[in-house]
């Protein structure tokens, strides 16, 4: 569920097919830099109504999903 939504938000943001994004996809391979990640995290926060920390270990889509899940599980 989280994967679907995150995929959708990324695809929406960079204008690509959601199907081309997997958990293993690296942000760098999508041409997503640190400024894009910041913006992406903001929209994910709004969507899930959570607050996330951004750090350098956020490299792949799976890292982002893990961060979201750790927050939503708590809530």
């Amino acid at each position, binding site marked *: 569920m989280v994967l679907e939504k995150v995929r959708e938000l990324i695809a929406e943001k960079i204008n690509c097919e959601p199907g081309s994004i997997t958990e293993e996809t690296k942000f*760098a391979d999508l041409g997503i830099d640190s*400024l894009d990640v910041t*913006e992406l995290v903001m929209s994910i926060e709004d969507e899930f109504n959570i607050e996330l920390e*951004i750090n350098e270990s956020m490299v792949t889509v799976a890292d982002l999903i893990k961060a979201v899940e750790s927050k939503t599980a708590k809530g």
Partner: protein
Amino acid sequence: MIKSPICEMLKIDYPIFQGGMAWIADGRLAAAVSNGGGLGIISAMNAGGDYLKRQIEIARSLTDRPFGVNIMLMSPHVDEVAEIVAEERVPVVTTGAGSPIKYMERWLEAGITVIPVVASVAMAKRAERSGAAAVIAEGEESGGHIGELTTMALVPQVCDAVDIPVIAAGGIADGRGVAACFMLGAVGVQLGTRFLLAKECPVHPNYKEMVLKATDISTVVTGRRFGGHTCRSIKNDFTRNFLKEEYAPDATPEKIEELGVGALRLAALEGDKKNGCFLAGQIAGLVNKEQPAAEIIREIFEEAEALLKGASLWVK
């Protein structure tokens, strides 16, 4: 006289900051700018705690006015210098190259006014949410580590997105730039390149000469290919070689990062025109004389004031 909320917030006479230029912005330059009525800023750069402590001591021996410290968040010593500014109760901390959220609680508890440099609306919003008193919206016209948006596009969008004061940076070197940024919604400005030519600026004379000689098209951006360390500096052998390596088919981010190591120090301290990396903004072409910092500030704001007073010229 130009007064804005940032003057009141920081107890400064003119709403102008001197950029925290690594290897250059030391205690002497910061004190000279603060004595001139602006906010001088010491760069903590990649150095350890002892260097920063010494510079704070020098600044305090030369001025009673407030000054700031710029913390480069990619520095290997960031934890140490982040603690020192809190212990020393430095009035203002600006941050660059990342998000300062990790240190916010400690700094706010120490009574520090925290003003992060941001390159996008999302970064500005996150800074505001974490307790920043203001943000510096820095366009890619700036020298050094940069984002992608121009000052013209970034500043009004950041002003609309946050409720805290916005300081504009990137491409400003005179009263025209200041007046324009106030029209965009900023209530203060940060200048780096112009202060390289402050008499009190300790940078190597060759560096000053490079800036004096620079024209509108003298700077170039390196590091865009892999991101992370996107930097604007004056074109020379260093940048030409860097770009050649950066766009070589076998280039890797690790190899490229190696290329830049030590180049700032070579430029700032040794004036090595060939191998040094001379960070400067696109506005370098406008900077054409060396003057005391206080005179620079006075001159800029006299011009800005005259322009803003005459701004109704176009309204018929």
